[in-house]
């Protein structure tokens, strides 16, 4: 479940990125209008639900297994990056909605559409963060936190 929603999140951001590039580089008014409306739709109905699901399932999986939430550095870093990415996404969704509202205005000229801001910085940055988390989750690099080492000692020699 966690794997499915996490990889789905990356796929959805890739689709969003394609529209974002079209919105940032396109000159045709119809293409620009469609791109901004599509970006809003994908962000609200696919990316946000997958992001929240990835965060929640990640918490459940880590707390419900021997990996724990604060025992391994790769888990802690993944949690921080996923939380950060989700927070930025939730803020950015409002900006995307505003851009889509502007683009949906039939009175907005082609020049007006071309003057709309791009969200490329956030979408490219978001994709990089998600790929870093993916690599961490795939390779699970060694390294126990101080708390993880303490728990490990307790597990080996339980108190009587």
């Amino acid at each position, binding site marked *: 479940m966690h794997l499915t929603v996490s990889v789905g999140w990356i796929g959805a951001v890739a689709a969003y990125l394609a529209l974002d590039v079209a919105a940032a*580089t*396109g000159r045709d008014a119809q293409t620009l209008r469609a791109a901004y409306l599509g970006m809003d739709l994908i962000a609200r109905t696919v990316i946000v639900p997958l992001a929240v699901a990835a965060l929640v399932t990640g918490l459940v999986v880590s707390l419900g297994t021997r990996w724990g939430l604060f025992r391994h550095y790769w888990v802690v*870093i993944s949690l921080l990056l996923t939380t950060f990415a989700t927070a930025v996404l939730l803020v950015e969704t409002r900006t995307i909605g505003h851009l889509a509202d502007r683009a949906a205005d039939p009175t907005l000229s082609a020049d007006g559409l071309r003057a709309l801001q791009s969200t490329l*910085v956030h979408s490219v940055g978001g994709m990089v963060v998600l790929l870093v988390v993916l690599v961490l989750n795939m390779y699970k690099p060694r390294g126990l936190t101080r708390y993880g080492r303490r728990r490990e000692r307790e597990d080996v020699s339980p108190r009587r």
Partner: protein
Amino acid sequence: MPRWVKVFVGVAIVAAVAAVVALLAGVEHGPGLHGP
């Protein structure tokens, strides 16, 4: 702390400082990359 964590934290700090400097310098999203 493993070496990879130290490198990771170092890169994260550099990225965060760069983002703050860009924000303070007034860099915004801009109107896209539309050619002439």
